[in-house]
């Protein structure tokens, strides 16, 4: 074993660095509990009596809850559909010899390179003629497309690791192909599905460019777009922004903490088995 020393110095340096990385999040959360006059001071207020007023304003009095709901509906449906399509592609390509599979899979991965801004204008014009602006379906389609390359490749790694014998045994025992997939394959690759699904969800939850252009109206827009409504030309409502940001952070933070191990593998496209 390769042994490292001086771990006390290591802990010290790490703690400082971690404090730097956590500070902006701490600052957002603490600002969200401050009154306007406490948030806006030349000398920061470190200790104060927390107030709920920002949260009342954001969650109850303005339409931000509706936007959170929009984000949730779009994110969940887009992630589930992404998983469905990604499974259909990656499982079939690992188990059956399809023509040109190497090229097709590489092509799918290469789609990750296309900058979203390149697709924004054509998709806007297309969706305008199809009546998909300001609709759930429009954003869901875009998000499935943007999540598919990563999900397909992530799941590909999991399906490749699957021992063939297991499925053969089930087939011999009289299980149908689809039966094998749903009863044997799915339970084993569950970690992969969780990783791909949750990473897709986090992506949809945070996406701003398409959300702001394809559903600009306030009823159908998602949470990241709603955030910008507190940045009025007259003044920035920092307390509201911080409160809305904190609310938006809660679900994704929980996801990150609970499924940490799967996320690490997902972030590397499955290349490293974290």
């Amino acid at each position: 074993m390769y042994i490292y020393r001086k771990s006390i110095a290591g802990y010290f340096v790490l703690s400082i660095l971690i404090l730097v990385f956590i500070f902006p999040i701490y600052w957002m959360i603490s600002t969200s509990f401050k009154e306007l006059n406490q948030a806006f001071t030349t000398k920061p207020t470190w200790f104060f009596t927390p107030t709920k007023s920002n949260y009342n304003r954001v969650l109850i009095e303005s339409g931000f809850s509706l936007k959170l709901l929009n984000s949730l509906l779009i994110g969940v449906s887009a992630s589930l559909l992404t998983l469905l399509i990604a499974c259909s592609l990656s499982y079939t390509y690992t188990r059956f010899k399809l023509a040109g599979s190497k090229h097709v899979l590489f092509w799918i991965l290469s789609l990750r390179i296309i900058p979203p801004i390149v697709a924004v204008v054509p998709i806007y014009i297309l969706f305008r003629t199809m009546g998909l602006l300001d609709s759930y379906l429009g954003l869901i389609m875009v998000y499935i497309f943007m999540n598919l390359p990563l999900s397909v490749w992530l799941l590909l790694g999991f399906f490749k690791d699957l021992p063939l014998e297991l499925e053969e045994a089930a087939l011999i025992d009289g299980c149908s192909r689809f039966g094998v997939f749903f009863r044997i394959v799915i339970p084993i690759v569950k970690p992969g599905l969780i990783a791909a699904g949750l990473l897709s969800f986090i992506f949809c939850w945070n996406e701003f460019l398409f959300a702001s252009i394809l559903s600009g109206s306030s009823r159908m827009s998602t949470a990241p777009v709603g955030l910008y409504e507190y940045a009025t030309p007259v003044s920035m409502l920092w307390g509201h922004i911080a409160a809305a940001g904190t609310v938006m952070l809660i679900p994704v933070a929980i996801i990150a903490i609970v499924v940490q191990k799967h996320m690490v593998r997902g972030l590397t496209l499955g290349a490293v088995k974290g």
Partner: protein
Amino acid sequence: MKRSHRRGKIIPYFVVTPGLLFLIFMALYPLIFSLRISFYDWNLLDTEHAFVGLRNFKENILSLNFWHALWITVLFTVVAVSVEFVIGLVIALYLHRIIKGRRIFQTVLLLPIVVAPAIAGLMWRFMLNYEYGVINYFFTVLRMQRYAWLASKNLALPALMITDIWQWTPFMTIILLAGLQSLPDDPLEAAAIDGCSRWQTFWFIILPMLKPVATIAIVLRTIDAFRVYDIIFMMTRGGPVHATTSLSWLIYETGFKTFELHQSASMSWLMLIFVTVIITYILKFTGVNESRK
């Protein structure tokens, strides 16, 4: 497994068809549409569109705005991704050597990654505020002057870089740490026995073995940094005086503010070509794309 009757051979194609058709449609439609309107005079407000040949591409290639935006984008990408890689690697090496508490550090590091870039942009804008920003407060504590970060031509781009570095250094750390932990012990033991110094071990053994994982991290970050948009929208909106106008922002402004879709479409194509060339070059340079297949 190999059931040779016909049905068994055709069904897999049926299964992949819907997914592939969807991908082909969503990928090719925008690209072909952009390419087509690149050859026209296509203002969103007009009804008639005149064919102009290569004029739009020529105008972009001759336009200072386009090259300036490309320069800003490349500068942002190179600085942000390199700093993220170096700091990320240092933290990963530190985390790798400790055993107790690694999970807690790792959990904390995942948080910046999952913050929406839109929120990150707004919060950093708040923290960088000239009068009320906490960053400027820290500067005054250190007996330094306050800076008008986002209003200054020289500091606006670094402010965006700082935001990006804050958000994505943890991403580098987490990937590199996972890579470090999957390295085999034997070469390291051999190096220790042969009396390699720690620096030698790092430079000649750890780094080369880490290359595939590091390449994936750098490629993914380069792709995303090159398309930077959200934090620009939230922090500077391309200003002051184009100091933070990235390619994405220029394409957005041209398309949705002046409605000259032909210009934004032809710039989109040039951007796609640039990013593809850069990524191909990184993969060639590191020689990783062959081993991935």
